Structures are given as C-alpha cells and as structure tokens.
C-alpha cells in the first residue's frame, strides 16, 4: 500500500497564519501546540485545556454573536470524531463567517500517535475515514481537501469564502517533539481574548 500524500502540520498552519487577516483563530490539540510557535495575535484562542470536540461549537457561538467577524477553527481529526454532531449543528446554523479546518493525520498525536478509529488500520474496509464526505453529508457545500501546502497556499482564499467553509488538510504524523506546551492560565487568557473581540 502506498503512503498517501500529506503535508507537515507546521506548513499547513503557516498558510492559515499568513492568510487569516483579522479572523479569530481557535486551535485545538496538536494544532494548538504548533500554533504557539507562530506570531501571536489578539484574536487567537489556543484552546488548551480543552474539552475534545468542543472547539467548533465554541467558534460557532462567536460567529453567531459577531456575524461580521470571520472565525476559523483548526480542529484535529480525533477531536472531530468526538463530536461529529457539531457538523450537523454547523450546517443547520450555516454561518457565512465560519471556517472549519480539519487537520487529518489519523492519529491522536499529543498522546503519542495512537491511531484513531478513523485510521485505515482500524477500519473494516482498510480505507481512511473521509472527513470531507462527512461534512458533505451533514450539509456543507463549501468543502475542500488539500494534501500539500502549496496547493492550500494557492487556494488560500477558501479560508474566507462565504461559509460555512470546511477544509480538510491531510498532514503527516509528527514523531519528533510532541511534548505539551502550556499557553498559560486559561481564565486570564480567555478574558484577554474576550476583550479583543469587544474592541
């Protein structure tokens, strides 16, 4: 079996970071860890500690409350699996200012790289779970998939299309340093974040 093409997580996030404009960016799990290596922005929410799967509804709430504010949630595939229902909630609300980016590497990276139940080795058909098809089935119409950073960079406008937008980024499983990186006390950070949304 050939190895499917995928991009380094850092390269994928660099594109989001470069083209976010004034968007709120909420990052979870492995993406949250990596996002902290990039230049911070007042509208960043490094969602750590998190409740796995709850990043998209958190972002949806902001998008509903502030319809002129673009909200980008960068979620892991493991997080998606913990709350697939949020796709249905998102499609029902259909916020035009919302983008859900799913970083799909097939593993729980921050706990050591154990395969998720969507990984080909765990599935009866031996095929990776198709996260794009899940979104389409839930009602998303703006669905994109990228397996290399240059293609994503070339199509970066997708981040800001009228939404809800759903972007799957196939990424490599990182095997080097994946140790926890603390973004600081959550209550203080979220108050700063809230203030940035009111200004």
């Amino acid at each position, binding site marked *: 079996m050939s190895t499917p093409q995928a991009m380094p997580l850092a390269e994928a996030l660099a594109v989001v970071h470069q083209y976010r404009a004034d968007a709120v960016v909420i990052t979870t799990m492995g993406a949250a860890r990596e996002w902290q290596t990039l230049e911070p922005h007042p509208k960043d929410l490094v969602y750590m500690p998190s*409740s*796995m799967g709850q990043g998209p*509804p958190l972002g949806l709430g902001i998008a509903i409350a*502030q319809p002129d504010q673009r909200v980008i949630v960068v979620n892991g595939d493991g997080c998606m699996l913990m709350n697939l229902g949020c796709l249905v909630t998102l499609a029902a609300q259909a916020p035009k200012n919302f983008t859900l980016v799913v970083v799909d590497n097939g593993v729980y990276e921050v706990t050591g790289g154990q395969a998720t139940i969507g990984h080909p080795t765990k599935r009866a058909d031996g095929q990776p779970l198709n996260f794009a098809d899940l979104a389409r089935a839930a009602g998303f119409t703006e669905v994109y998939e990228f397996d290399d950073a240059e293609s994503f960079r070339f199509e970066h406008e997708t981040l800001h299309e009228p939404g809800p937008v759903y972007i799957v980024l196939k990424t490599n499983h990182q095997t080097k340093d994946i140790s926890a990186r603390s973004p600081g006390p959550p209550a203080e950070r979220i108050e700063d974040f809230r203030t940035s949304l009111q200004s």
Partner: protein
Amino acid sequence: MFAPEEFVSTLTELGITHVVWIPDTTLGQWDAALRVAPEIELVQVCREGEAWALAAGLYLGGAKPIVVIQCTGLFESGDSLRNILHDYRLPIYGLIGYRSFLNAASLPGDTCLKFTEPVLDAWALDTVFLKDESMKPQFAEHYRKCTEQQIPGICLMAEGAA
C-alpha cells in the same frame, strides 16, 4: 412549571439573547413560543456538550445566552461543562430539567432521581432548585445574582413524567 409565554417573557426581561438547547418532553413545550420570540434566538445542538461550548462562544462574542437541557444532558456534558465553567471560569447560566422529580410514573425507578443532585453538587456550581410553582420567581432572582457576580449558575427545575 413555566407556561411558554411566561418563560419567554422572563428570558426577555433578563435580556437573554440566545437559548442554546435540546428540548425534552417538558422543555419542548416552550419550543413554539421561543421560535417566535422577537428578541431571542433559539440555537439547537445535537448533544449537550456542544451547548456549553456554543454558549461560551456566544458570551465571548458579546451575547447573553442560556443553556437549557435535561438532567440526562447534564450527565453527558460533564467534560464540556468542566472546561467552560471551571477551566475558563465563564459565567454561563444553565436551566436543567429534572426528569421524573414530580412524577416517575412513566419511568419507574428513574435513576435521574438518584444522580441529578449529587452530580450537580460535585460540579460545585451555584444552584437554585425549583421544586414547585411557588418557587418560580427564584429563577430570575438567581440568574440576576449570578450575572451580577459574574459566576456560572444553574437552575434545576422539577419536571413531571418523561
């Protein structure tokens, strides 16, 4: 306990902008009234864990949400509640229907009666318990108190048969 229009007018007086919910037999009786309430947006989710996070996002964006779920949803949504109300200390308020408290005829031996109050105690949240109609005014009073103090709060509302 609350008639539909009575519940809507209470929420409107409190300035609530969004009801994030999943209806049950009792709460669902407010559905039609909430849908036409001019100053309230009803946001339905698939599972209750979503409700706390979605309400948190609304609050961060400047809205005044309330979470409305059944006690079974409280059980399901513990991790999200822990994260939003304790890790991030966001002052989100929830109204939780207490299944079978007034009438367990349709679900004899309903374990909601065994676990709801201990679970709420475990989450260490400021809670008011409406056991009967006469206690209804305590909902608005408690909501205002929690809002003033910027703390999370729960109104546990007795329900009848499931």
